[in-house]
């Protein structure tokens, strides 16, 4: 019983960190209606950034937030300006392939710069664990969980209560009408894309103490992120958090009782099952996946 409890507990913690990584993707999808296939590579360069700051400035990886998040915001704005925006009025496919090309480009530039070696940062507190009631947890996981929950709440508050949030929601509901009401839709797209990229930067700061970074690290995580985003209902922020936690629990239980590799297979099968029976995701609106988005 305690084993199951511990597995679920660890699953929730790791899942929340996966969710943090997926929130940016779901935000971009929800507003711009595009899938950024280079999302994993955004995570990868942000992780290299955190690693470099820790390695060369000797700072704690969590302090890297100050530099990495704004840098990723600017990077996102640049990519939006150069690649996403020119592709928005073209067929949906063009953005898919352009971001795919970007992902290949970034992966291989990283391979040339950093080689295929794995880079780590030293663990906090010498790798010791806390005990909370009957459960054990790494401090890195607890920090990640707290940041993920705080980030979800803050984003929800921002979307509901601020002018920018209202403008974003208006753009999602009806872009043309929003434009006519004086909302600068192109700028909303820019801010959303850059903001989604900044969130990946934040996720990278939380993940760097837990995972190694290497040029193709993004591919592993982006597949998990896609699964989470779809599970949660594409574009739903709370959905992404819940989806992430589901995936975390499935992964930790199946890798303990079966085998780590099979754990991965489980969530792809889960993903396909959701696509078959609830294409709008567990928490998404009905009809989302079947209506012709961006067709």
């Amino acid at each position, binding site marked *: 019983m305690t084993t199951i409890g511990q597995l679920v507990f660890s699953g929730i913690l790791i899942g929340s960190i996966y969710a943090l990584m997926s929130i940016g993707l779901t935000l971009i999808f929800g507003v711009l209606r595009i*899938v950024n296939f280079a999302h994993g590579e955004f995570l990868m360069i942000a992780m290299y950034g955190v690693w470099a700051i820790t390695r060369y400035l000797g700072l704690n990886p969590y302090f890297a937030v100050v530099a990495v998040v704004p840098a990723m915001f600017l990077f996102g704005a640049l990519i939006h300006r150069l690649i996403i925006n020119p592709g928005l009025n073209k067929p949906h*496919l063009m953005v898919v392939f352009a971001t795919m090309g970007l992902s290949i480009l970034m992966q291989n*530039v990283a391979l040339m710069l950093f080689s295929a070696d794995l880079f780590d940062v030293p663990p906090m507190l010498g790798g010791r664990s806390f005990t909370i009631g009957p459960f054990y947890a790494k401090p890195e996981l607890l920090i990640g969980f707290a940041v993920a929950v705080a980030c979800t709440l803050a984003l929800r508050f921002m979307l509901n209560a601020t002018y920018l949030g209202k403008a974003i929601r208006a753009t999602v509901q009806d872009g043309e009408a929003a434009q006519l009401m004086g909302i600068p839709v192109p700028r909303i797209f820019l801010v959303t894309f850059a903001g989604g990229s900044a969130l990946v930067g934040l996720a990278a700061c939380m993940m760097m103490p837990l995972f190694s970074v290497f040029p193709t690290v993004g591919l592993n995580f982006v597949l998990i992120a896609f699964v989470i985003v779809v599970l949660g209902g594409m574009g739903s922020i709370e959905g992404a958090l819940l989806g992430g936690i589901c995936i975390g629990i499935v992964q930790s239980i199946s890798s303990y009782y079966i085998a780590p590799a099979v754990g991965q297979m489980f969530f*792809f099968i889960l993903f396909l099952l959701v696509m078959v029976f609830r294409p709008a995701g567990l928490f998404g609106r009905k009809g989302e996946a079947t209506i012709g988005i961006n067709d």
Partner: protein
Amino acid sequence: MGVAPLGAKARASRWQLMPGRGTVSLFELVLLAIFVALVAIRLPQNLQDVVIQTFLWAGLALAWNIAGGYAGLISFGHAAFFGLGAYTSSILSVNYGVTPWIGLWLGGLLSAAFAAMLTLICARLRGPFFILSTLAASEVIRIGALNWATLTGGAEGFAILPIPSVANMIFASKTPYAALILGYLVIVYVISKVVEGSRYGFYLFAVRDDEDAASAAGVNPLLVRTGAMCLSAFLTAIGGSLFAQYFLFLDPTHVISPELSFQFALLPALGGLGTAIGPVLGSIAITPLSEMLRSYFGGGAAGLHLAIYGGVLVVVMLYFPSGIAGALERLVYRGKIRHDRAP
């Protein structure tokens, strides 16, 4: 079909300078002649290898294009079909002594059956949802192949003993491989041309461009889509078997990788989606370049060829969305009107 402007005289001839739907063009014949010459003349081994890979990738890109270009079913899971084909024929030949000449058809059928299942499941999904589902399905196959080690050799890989004989489909020199794979390319190309000129091809284009209108006109979108996916998977699997016979080594992380699926999709995107000549041009532009860069720079600049590839792809997608084929066509037909082509 494009509507010819009033007064323009439609050309009666089915012979054209540039490739079009349902016609045979001078361009294609010249290209074929060059390909045959490349097989026939005695090139150095490393160049022959580049030629073989260019043919193989062109064939695979064409196979992907039947689903992705003609039917609009953008799949990032074709590596699963490729892997199923490669593993089926190899396992049958190594473990059960079935010649790959038979095994490749069985791999193709298995793959087509899997494709039918996948399409029936995912057919109602659109855009990114369909793409991600195919990606997930191919990951399931990859992880399955990795863990079913008694059958596939798992992560250690599956080696085919190099005993040259025609029955084993293993040859001592590269020339028969080049001829075999050129044969594959030509067959896939002819199938593509027949499909795009046929009634079925028009059903595909109709479903791709406007599903509601197509089904109102009496086309069954599900049936049409499933057919395209099965044909595409079948041809991809045969390419996989040929790949296995040429390289004689398979492992799941390379043969069923998402990267491989992306490659299948990106070559047609680069060359010109939904045209038969596009995927071939894409492979001619990219495969020799990446092979040369790989051999010149070796380990010194690992990733350089793919970095260039990625950069080129971004630029092409943004500025030449109809790919190399479209750019070439614009160059040749500057200001002139073509009658044999849909707008």
